[in-house]
């Protein structure tokens, strides 16, 4: 999908929240809990359906100037898409 047009959003029925007990972001869905690493949590918190995939990469590149955002963020978003966790 075109990064300038795709506005990823977590699917209805899946909840992203901070788990204060385990100090991690988690994804909750039927019969399943996914514990996210800090990077994954940062990316998914930007996937609210208003920002394009390109916007998300830009924001993260500003936050983490030394990280390989341009390659890793699109790969991660595709993985989440393949899991069926986006709307």
């Amino acid at each position: 999908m075109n990064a300038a047009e795709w506005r990823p959003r977590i699917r209805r029925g899946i909840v992203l929240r901070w788990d204060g007990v385990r100090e991690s972001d988690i994804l909750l869905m039927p019969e399943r809990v996914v514990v996210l690493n800090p990077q994954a949590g940062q990316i998914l918190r930007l996937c609210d359906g208003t920002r394009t995939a390109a916007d998300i990469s830009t924001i993260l590149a500003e936050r983490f100037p030394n990280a390989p955002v341009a390659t890793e963020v699109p790969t991660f978003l595709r993985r989440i898409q393949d899991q069926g966790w986006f709307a």
Partner: protein
Amino acid sequence: MIRPPWALLAEVTHACPLHCPYCSNPLQLVRRSAELGTADWARVLDEAGELGVVQAHISGGEPLLRPDLTEIVTAADRAGIYTQLVTSGVGLTANRLAELTTAGLNSVQLSVQDATPARSDHIAGRDSFDDKCRAAAIIREADLPFGLNIVLHRLNLDHLDDIIRLAVTWGADRVELANTQFYGWALRNRRALMPGQDQLAAARETVAAWQKRLGGVPELIWVLPDWADGVAKPCMGGWGTTSVTVAPDGTALPCPAASSIDGLDAPNVRDLPLRWIWEESAAFGRYRGTAWMPEPCRSCPSKETDFGGCRCQAYALTGDAARTDPACRLSPDHHLVQPTPGTAPLTYRMPQ
């Protein structure tokens, strides 16, 4: 350090319009007058969230029979807990589901007993298939994640093709094809419900063919019974490690079937905080970890994977909850789980 539980099974009532002969509720059902009240459930959910629970199955019996179900769901949502309503579908209306969804309900699991009205109603012990059909449409219309659960046994395994077709027609997202585990009511009905190995083998092929055809939509989950392949299951992800069950009367259990274990002295949420129950109680510590294990578990490389299997099944079949689960092919009691299918009348689940 004892790690916190992920999940809560909230059995809010044992009352149920159905009488399924494989029901996982205990033979001694809790009376309605002994059930926890709304405030108790709200407190338990709050304590569960504090402790680390992030998922709750709101189950029963039939949870829709609780007039305060919306308040219970609200309390779970307030505690940050993801909720799944586990229902027979009897009594589910669009209005009721809308009210529950507004309160924070996240997903629904519906049960069905077989693919046709006559067969499904025969297992359920009452007319209910048409209600389930309507419930499926209501869940789909509400656009909630929709799980369909079918407990499989001798009387419906040969209809698996039709059952999966029904699940696709009803629009389920996830289909649990769960072979009967024999404790509680199912143990009482073992002779009538125990399938033959040939039935299981054919069913397994049917599922594999559908999985290939459907490509994951809906997702088909095939839950093989432990006795069939001689591999014990890590019951509840390990005793006191993953999940806590609260029975309708407030009894807290490491497994929903554990109320049958004599001398467990299960604590009650009416008397004690859930954190103490999880971290300090003798009942939750009793089979946690591996130190309690007898041989052949003690020296087995699988002991950290299967945790010795199911304590309740060991108790039900051998009278000793600390023995190796007879489902394991290495158990000296393994002969106790060998299939002995036959025909027998069904004993329907009823208050005793």
